[in-house]
């Protein structure tokens, strides 16, 4: 009982985070019909800056890290990415009114990762003084790529089976390549490489890092506005998407939290790391996932998966998921 109360208190405290405030602010002004527009160039630039910031920092951390420590968390990240898609395949994609390939694509998007959600969690952890290995954000691609690849492969298998006859093999490398070449992963990997191989400390500390928090606030605002704007799109598809999008971020996060806890026991994975792993799992991709899926599963209706992710999945992941996983971590690890 006491524990529950403690948990609730911590949970509620997280709501005062400015990241959440900007997200909710964006939803409110969109709902009120505001004509405020953040130029697309600024949005793209802010995302780029976030990913470079995460990448460079991760790269510099890996330089000094014991690579062995990364192994288990990375494996768990990949495992979670696949698990999410498989669970979606046998739940959402089977539901009445949900076209199978639309359901699979949605599961793929929820298995993939959102850089802004990740960044919001990093800022909130910092505010709470909860430490994590600096390479944890670099687990991003380990979860993102397997999830997208598996979703596309499953959709392909399903569609081919339906058409019968046709049984050409699904080729995996083109999907991985497409994913790596997307703007999000290539910025992150570029940052990683720069952090790992060169000495960008000065430009990191004088530019990428100090602008991080501010640009994140702007991204949160945009995500909030987008979430509201796209609600319409979601309304036109089956209600199951709404249910899935509300439940999945939390369920996925809890699965990842459990696996992260195992890694904590096994190799001393940090509490902050466990929380971030849960956030990665709970987040759904907003930038590079959609085009990859659009090209990989062209028959799937983008309104279903983008609507579910942008208008419900992401707000739930940020506004409920992150506070939940942090509060859980504080209780579990007694920090």
């Amino acid at each position, binding site marked *: 009982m006491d524990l529950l109360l403690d948990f609730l208190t911590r949970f509620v405290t997280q709501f005062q985070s400015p990241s959440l405030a900007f997200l909710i602010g964006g939803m409110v002004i969109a709902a009120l019909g505001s004509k405020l527009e953040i130029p697309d160039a*600024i949005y793209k630039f802010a995302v780029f800056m976030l990913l470079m910031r995460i990448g460079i920092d991760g790269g510099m951390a890996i330089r000094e890290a014991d690579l062995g420590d990364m192994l288990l968390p990375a494996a768990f990240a990949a495992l979670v990415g696949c698990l999410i898609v498989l669970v979606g395949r046998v739940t959402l994609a089977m539901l009445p009114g949900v076209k199978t390939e639309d359901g699979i694509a949605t599961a793929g998007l929820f298995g993939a990762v959102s850089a802004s959600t990740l960044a919001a969690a990093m800022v909130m952890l910092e505010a709470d003084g909860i430490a994590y290995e600096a390479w944890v954000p670099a687990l991003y691609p380990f979860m993102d790529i397997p999830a997208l690849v598996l979703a596309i492969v499953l959709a392909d298998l399903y569609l081919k089976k339906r058409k019968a006859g046709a049984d050409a093999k699904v080729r995996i490398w083109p999907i991985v390549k497409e994913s790596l070449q997307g703007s999000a992963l290539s910025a992150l990997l570029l940052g990683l490489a720069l952090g790992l191989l060169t000495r960008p400390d000065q430009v990191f500390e004088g530019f990428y890092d100090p602008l991080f928090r501010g640009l994140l606030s702007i991204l949160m605002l945009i995500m909030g506005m987008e979430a509201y704007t796209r609600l319409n799109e979601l309304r036109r598809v089956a209600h199951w998407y709404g249910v899935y999008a509300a439940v999945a971020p939390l369920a996925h996060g809890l699965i990842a939290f459990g696996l992260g806890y195992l890694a904590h026991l096994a190799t001393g994975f940090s509490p902050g790391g466990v929380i971030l792993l849960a956030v990665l799992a709970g987040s759904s991709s907003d930038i590079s996932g959609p085009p990859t899926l659009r090209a990989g599963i062209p028959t799937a209706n983008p309104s279903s998966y983008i609507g579910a992710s942008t208008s419900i999945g992401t707000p739930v992941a940020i506004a409920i998921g992150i506070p939940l996983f942090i509060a859980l971590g504080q209780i579990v690890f007694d920090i």
Partner: protein
Amino acid sequence: MTYKATKVVIITEKIIFDGVARIIEEAGASGYTAVAAGGKGSRGVRSSGRPAVVDAFSNIKIEVITSSREMADRIADEVAAAYFENYSGITYLEEVEVLRPQKF
């Protein structure tokens, strides 16, 4: 002195631009012109310019001038066949007059 030519217009999702361009080139057209566009059709609104979290889904309008009507038809048909089952898009033809037919 002008010569008759046919203009093919294709309005579709930006994400398939490369594929459409390939079809145009393989059909033997001498070039094409592309313009960023927004729009509304059977598959909903596509914005352009404003910060869309998923910008890849805004529209592009592509024009091809061809000196032969057959080439124009072929381009329109092939683009429609290759993409319009899964991607939103429309295509139409117009008669135009060009000054230097050898350009096309």
